[in-house]
């Protein structure tokens, strides 16, 4: 059977593979290579070795973006997951109108980052009006603005994953615990939370990755203002490429470091879920 399928290899493989090569594979290889070149278009490169990587650190821009990004990602990861888990608990105890609430909480997740950014630009500036400032007056407003935005967008998303996890707990398990006299907090701590550990892993890493990759919301809400102080990694890389001539190579080197960071998070997640599967087996 394998042989007769292979006769049609071109038809089955090429449409996706050629597109993949054009959009991803070739640009990826070029990108890694060009991080060692000085260039303005991709064809006029001059080899400079590790120079671009060294030039990343001639100012504190990238380090600042990294620190801001880490703080933002950790804070929003914690708040989103606590909020989402709490809502998931509330929506799985058989209250009336559960489906309607789930529909509403999930809705912001479908709205695109640019639109989200401008919605919250209006609201946050509205709240800051009484102080006579705007969201770009001080980086702390931008920081908390982005955290609120991120929560609004992602709580519903993580909530549906937690709900799916909670609904998968066998009801005999909960009944048995209740017969044994477990109170609400024991039930939560000893039965529910351990049973949904896979959901917790998924949600933790999803929020981590999307926090580091955030771009559209950052651009639309603060565009990095004031003075690049609310710029996160993705936006910093974008501005290095397109905002400063002669820095294309540095932008590409930053992109390589950024990719390594994101890939490390993904590999950690993989290791986590592998270990859990082995423990379960």
């Amino acid at each position, binding site marked *: 059977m394998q042989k007769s399928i292979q006769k049609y290899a071109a038809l089955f493989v090429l449409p996706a593979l050629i597109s993949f090569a054009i959009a991803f594979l070739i640009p990826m290889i070029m990108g890694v290579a060009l991080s060692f070149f000085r260039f303005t278009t991709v064809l006029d490169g001059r080899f400079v070795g590790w120079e671009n990587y060294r030039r990343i650190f001639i100012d504190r821009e990238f380090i600042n973006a990294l620190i801001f990004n880490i703080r933002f990602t950790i804070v929003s990861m914690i708040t989103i997951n606590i909020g989402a888990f709490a809502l998931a608990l509330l929506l799985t105890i058989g209250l009336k109108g559960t489906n309607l*609430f789930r529909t509403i909480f999930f809705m912001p997740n479908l709205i695109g980052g640019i639109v989200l950014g401008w919605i919250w630009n209006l609201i946050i500036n509205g709240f800051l009006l009484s102080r006579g400032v705007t969201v770009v007056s001080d980086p702390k407003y931008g920081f908390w603005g982005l955290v609120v935005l991120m929560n609004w967008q992602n709580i519903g998303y993580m909530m549906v994953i937690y709900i799916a996890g909670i609904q998968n707990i066998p009801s005999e398990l909960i009944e048995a615990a209740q017969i044994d006299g477990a109170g609400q907090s024991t039930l939560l701590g000893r039965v529910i939370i351990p049973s949904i550990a896979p959901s917790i892993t998924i949600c933790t890493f999803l929020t981590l990755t999307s926090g580091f990759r955030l771009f559209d919301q950052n651009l639309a809400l603060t565009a990095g203002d004031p003075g690049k102080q609310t710029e996160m990694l993705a936006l910093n890389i974008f501005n290095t490429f397109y905002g400063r001539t002669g820095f294309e190579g540095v*932008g590409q080197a930053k992109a390589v470091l950024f990719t390594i960071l994101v890939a490390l998070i993904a590999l950690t997640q993989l290791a986590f879920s592998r270990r859990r599967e082995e423990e379960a087996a």
Partner: protein
Amino acid sequence: MTQIRNRRTLAWALIALLVILALIFITPMLIVLMNSFKSKFFISSEPFKFPNADTFTGRENYIEGARKIRFFSAFGYSLFITVFSVIGISLATSMLGWYLTRVKTRFTTIVYYLLVFSMIVPFQMVMFTMSKTANMLHLDNPIGILVLYVGFGAGLGTFMFSGFIKTIPLSLEEAAMIDGATAVQTFFMIVYPMLKSTAITVAILNAMWVWNDYLLPYLTIGIEYKTIPVAIQYLRGGYGAVDMGAMMAMLVLAMIPIIIFYLVMQKHIIRGVIAGAVKG
């Protein structure tokens, strides 16, 4: 008796809490809607006030905004690119997913791992070289960009399709091929119909991504052909104040299709998103 009554009180208290939270979730969208009917001079100075006789402008912001960013042509481009990217991704990746699952060679293994790898790489890694490549290959138009979307969507699509195909028993396909069906016939008549639920998931995840995507269309076709997110960000312009009246109206117009799509397809969307999160 008192215990039951207490329980009921608690249930109502929790429902009241949920109602308040739900209102908090919806309010940002309603505030934007409300401001879209106010004169642009009153939006930033009193965003939380209802329009009154002085500030109400009717449809003016909608007309002005739609003219400024050519909203309806942006809507057309967004719709065209989303629909055909989704069709392209579903077809190309289901075929590749089947091939990679049924044919085991070193080549198929390498392709599979490259596709999985592409899912973790952030867009910033390839955005510069990709947009230059697209430019050189003349893919910088609404049809060419479909190739780019199929390329970027290839990872998740192939991964999800081949994940499902692994669970289908071989016997049906073998029987078809013994009866003389070619691989193409077998795929389209036997395999493809079985992929329906995965195809819906893949289509939904990709539709949400392509419709809302900003950077890829901005970098490749953004000057000539603006999709909705690109057109909205364009309102920010270079320097000076943003026309908040036009902005509010365009945000409303941008949200309406998404909300309709969501209310119609809700079940599929939530199921698809969960499947995507768990497998991705």
